[in-house]
């Protein structure tokens, strides 16, 4: 039972290692793209079957976005980013529930020892993925903010001149907010990575100890945690987007 913090490389193309999480990301993206293309070609005015499910999920997400932004036009602007983050993260979190986690793989020789490199590893259990997603959220928040209220006003939120009313306290608070923005990257990436990686380790250990029936509560817990973490990531992105496009209150 080997648990490694970093994603294990399956093979190398030239000098670049192809890790198992990279393969899972590609498979997941292909799955989502093919599903959307099939739905788009067979779209009907009165939905039946799978189209019904997808429509209800998207409507629930749009209502969630509406409840935070209180403005339908703004929701339409934010919806693609937030919904994509939610759907991708929830599917990648639930990969760890597929039977075969950590056990089906290749035997490879790494640093002289033979270790098992598993095929199935949850995409969010790779710090590269969560960091990339956190950077995407961070830069989208900045771009949406600048596009909505202009670069000068947006920079004015962080760089408050000490000559106006709150004097030096205003400058200090602005600097703190700037640091807080960069701390969001670390917070986003580590929250998702920590939750999903810890869940994977828990599942591997439990299934290793007692393979039947006893791990059921832990599987339910992981199902729930995967859903909540996806929801939290999407909603935090949404809330920060909303805060970035509103003008500073005075």
């Amino acid at each position, binding site marked *: 039972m080997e648990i490694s913090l970093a994603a294990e490389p399956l093979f190398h193309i030239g000098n670049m290692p192809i890790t198992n999480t990279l393969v899972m990301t590609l498979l997941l993206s292909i799955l989502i793209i093919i599903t959307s293309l099939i739905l788009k070609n067979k779209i009907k005015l009165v939905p039946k079957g799978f189209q019904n499910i997808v429509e209800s999920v998207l409507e629930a997400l749009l209502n969630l976005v509406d409840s935070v932004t209180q403005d339908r036009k703004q929701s339409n602007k934010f919806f693609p980013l937030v919904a994509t983050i939610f759907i991708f993260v929830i599917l990648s979190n639930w990969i760890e529930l597929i039977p075969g986690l950590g056990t089906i793989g290749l035997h490879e020789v790494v640093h002289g020892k033979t270790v098992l490199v598993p095929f199935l590893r949850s995409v969010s259990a790779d710090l590269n993925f969560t960091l990339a997603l956190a950077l995407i959220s961070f830069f989208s928040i900045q771009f949406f903010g600048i596009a909505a209220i202009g670069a000068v006003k947006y920079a004015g939120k962080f760089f408050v001149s000490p000559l106006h009313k709150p004097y030096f306290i205003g400058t200090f608070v602005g600097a703190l907010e700037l640091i807080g923005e960069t701390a969001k990257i670390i917070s986003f990436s580590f929250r998702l990575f*920590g939750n999903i990686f*810890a869940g994977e380790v828990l599942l591997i250990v439990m299934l290793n100890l007692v393979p039947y029936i006893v791990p059921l509560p832990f599987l339910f817990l992981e199902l729930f945690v995967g859903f909540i973490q996806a929801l939290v990531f999407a909603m935090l992105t949404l809330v920060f987007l909303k805060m970035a496009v509103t003008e500073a209150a005075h």
Partner: protein
Amino acid sequence: MKSTWVGRKEKSMDAEAAKSIGAAIAMGVGAIGPGLGIGILASKAMESIGRNPEATSKVQTAMILAIAFTEAIAIYALVVALIIKFV
């Protein structure tokens, strides 16, 4: 008296044991703060839902967001513990 100090063997723990104890302490102490924090958050949210059941969905949304923030701190401690143990 002095002769007992000559050739005294230095006692030390081996690295694996120290790593395990370090990981355990990191996670254990790191779970106290967020545990208390989430308890206080949830209790205040329950109180306000009880006083004003119409505002349930607003309070619930804000509560889940705040709980995610506090839980992240426990996750930081978990990541430190995992790094100590496995890296």
